[in-house]
């Protein structure tokens, strides 16, 4: 390790000398008028630097000058396009490229100031970038491409939100409960997958077991807690507060066993796949496909099977459903199991999306899940799907303009705006808002 460090230290001046051969060549001829740039750079602690790079690669042998604070400095770009001018003090300098020294066919890009002012910002180095030709301005990819890329990522994120949101919405539809513990059901999926994988099981098996575990948690929750509460005739608001207590207890139980650190699932690093002009990481693409398939299966179950029809009947009117011979408690139990499984799968996908498994990861997206459910219309399953996709798209696309640490704010703001203008949500019905 120390040897490596020494090697780097010894190598550095050599490399520097190598990058500035034209400067030395020049200074050899004009040694009396001007100090060589490489020496200059060592003489002064402060330096202005940059890299000249055209469409076809670095541009060498271009003269750059810096003037200001009673000082004149000059440098020539090396074979890698790098140039550096040492200056005696921090301050504002006028930096110019001698356009006559540019190779033929290369010109500064439109709107590039030359000369320009460069100011030190309390650091010993300042840099400025001269852009050449037209194409080079596209350091940022074209807007539409960025948009398409963000939209694809957002679609993937929205679908994984939808997995949890559909479960939450089914539970709300059949029992009226706003389940604040749903975030912990999401976390549990990821934590279980991590635990099984850590025991040496293949990741695919671990994920399946985690999903089964999520379904089990749903079953136990309903059997041990929610069904007895329904029997007692507990109101919806007390049940909601009970779910908050459950969320707190579960979150800290998970932290108790899992610890506070963030862990990675196997295969959390994945290569980027190019789809035409849009690129997406392989994990995100897999997540998109998996959640799309699962949601289609759930939709099929709801629309075409007996139990699905019974579920929708209970969601519509539990009393009427019971009167027409549907076992409401059994339907609700199945909804809890399916909701738990979907949430667990959503948690695994969320762990790949972030990436990382932590004890509070479910809590982080709980409000986005709520936003998706509310946006689509509380209690409507397809509304939850549509709402979640909108939330996912919005979160990812808003990062084009918003800082990344504000990306959830936009989604929460639409939640509030929707309630202002269309409280029943996109697919909801007026009567539900009470």
């Amino acid at each position, binding site marked *: 390790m120390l040897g490596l460090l020494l090697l780097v230290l010894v190598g550095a001046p050599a490399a520097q000398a190598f990058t500035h051969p034209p400067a030395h060549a020049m200074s050899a001829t004009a040694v009396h008028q001007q100090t060589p740039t490489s020496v200059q750079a060592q003489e002064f602690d402060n330096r202005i630097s940059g890299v000249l790079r055209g469409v076809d690669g670095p541009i060498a042998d271009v003269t750059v000058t810096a003037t200001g604070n009673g000082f004149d400095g000059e440098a020539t770009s090396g074979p890698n396009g790098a140039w550096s001018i040492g200056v005696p003090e921090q301050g504002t300098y006028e930096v110019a490229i001698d356009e006559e020294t540019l190779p033929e066919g290369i010109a500064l890009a439109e709107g590039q100031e030359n000369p320009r002012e460069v100011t030190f910002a309390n650091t010993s180095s300042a840099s400025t970038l001269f852009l050449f030709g037209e194409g080079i301005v596209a350091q940022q990819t074209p807007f539409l491409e960025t948009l398409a890329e963000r939209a694809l990522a957002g679609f993937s994120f929205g679908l994984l939100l939808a997995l949890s949101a559909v479960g939450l919405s089914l539970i709300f539809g059949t029992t009226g409960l706003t389940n604040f513990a749903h975030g912990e059901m999401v976390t549990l999926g990821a934590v279980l997958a991590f635990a099984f994988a850590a025991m040496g099981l293949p990741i695919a098996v671990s994920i399946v077991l985690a999903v089964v575990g999520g379904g089990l948690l749903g079953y136990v929750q309903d059997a041990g807690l929610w069904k007895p509460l329904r029997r007692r005739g507990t109101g*919806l*608001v007390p049940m909601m507060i009970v779910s*908050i*207590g459950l969320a*707190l*207890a579960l979150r*800290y139980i998970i932290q108790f066993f899992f610890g506070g650190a963030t862990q990675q699932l196997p295969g959390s690093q994945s290569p980027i796949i190019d789809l035409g002009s849009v690129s997406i990481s392989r994990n995100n693409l897999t997540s998109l496909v998996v959640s799309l398939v699962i949601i289609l299966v759930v939709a099929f179950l709801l629309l075409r099977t007996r139990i699905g029809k019974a579920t929708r009947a209970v969601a519509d009117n539990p009393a009427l459903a019971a009167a027409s011979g549907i076992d409401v408690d059994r339907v609700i139990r199945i909804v809890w199991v399916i909701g738990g499984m979907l949430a667990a799968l959503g948690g695994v996908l969320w762990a790949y999306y972030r990436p990382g498994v932590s004890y509070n990861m479910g*809590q982080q997206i709980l409000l986005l899940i709520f936003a998706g459910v509310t946006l689509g219309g509380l209690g409507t399953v397809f509304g939850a799907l549509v709402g979640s996709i909108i939330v996912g798209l919005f979160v990812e696309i808003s990062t084009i303009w918003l800082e990344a640490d504000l990306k959830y704010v936009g989604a929460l703001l639409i939640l*509030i705006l929707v309630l202002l203008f269309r*409280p029943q949500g996109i697919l909801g019905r007026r009567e539900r808002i009470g």
Partner: protein
Amino acid sequence: MDFGNILINAFGELISPTTAAYALAALGLAVHFGYSGLLNFGQAGFMAVGAYGYAISTLTFNAPLPVAVLVAILASVVFAIVLGIPTLRLRADYLAIVTIAAAEIIRYIVTTNGLTDVTGSANGLAAFEGGFFSLNPFSPGTYNVGPLAMNERDLWIRIVGWTVVIVACLVVWLLMRSPWGRVLKGIREDENAVRSLGKNVYAYKMQALVIGGVLGSLAGIIFTLPRGAVQPANYATELTFFLYTCLLLGGMATVLGPVIGAMIFWVVLSLTQGLLYGAIEIGAITFLSNSQAGQLRYILVGVALMLLMVFRPQGVLGNKKELAFA
């Protein structure tokens, strides 16, 4: 294991400024939830608005203490009105989701790097408490309160904090036995009945939201002053849930309930921490690490919240007839 010390620490929690802040914020929740039936899950947001309103006006605008407190109060009034306009006409669980979302929006905004100059982003703000402690009438030294020894700063913040709590309790008590308070309780019981009597239910709810929010913002200031720092991580949704635990412990439609609830909450947390850490120290418990013992206490909080809600929703002091829900 030093039982005396554990008990003294627990007694310290009884009168600590954090307990006062929790009591005040929970009192605000009592106005919202206990008396008006408004399910505000964004009390942490109101506390953050108060704390940041105070800290930013002190640090960025060099405002004197009364102005800073006024700014904090006004900010929470504005926050309450902005929240209330879209949501007060909706069902209780919508209000819950919107208020919790709004509180998180506040937390994201004060955490963002783009506003580091004003909010200090994730590190928060510090060194704004000078104005408050320069008013301290006590000379430097050690003061004994019962078995507790504290310096003049600790004494001053405790006296101010609990005075605010007592005044707030009086105000809420007077409000709730006034005609205004009776209308509010009427709204909690049956909104439509009150509306049919010609009362503007929306306006009453909004006023209740503002009053409880102002209490929350004052609580935010009292919460940050002894720390001398305000950090966004302190104002996450858990804070609101802890406040609900305090409120339900004491009794949600009572004036003293939230105060007693906050005291019980912190004393129990302190006792369990003392006993668990003590037991680990002497080797009586070997299967827990210190941080796990910390988490065990919060598991207990969650379980307590569930059990309270199921078996004694009226809390220690409450009257079962005065519940915001059937």
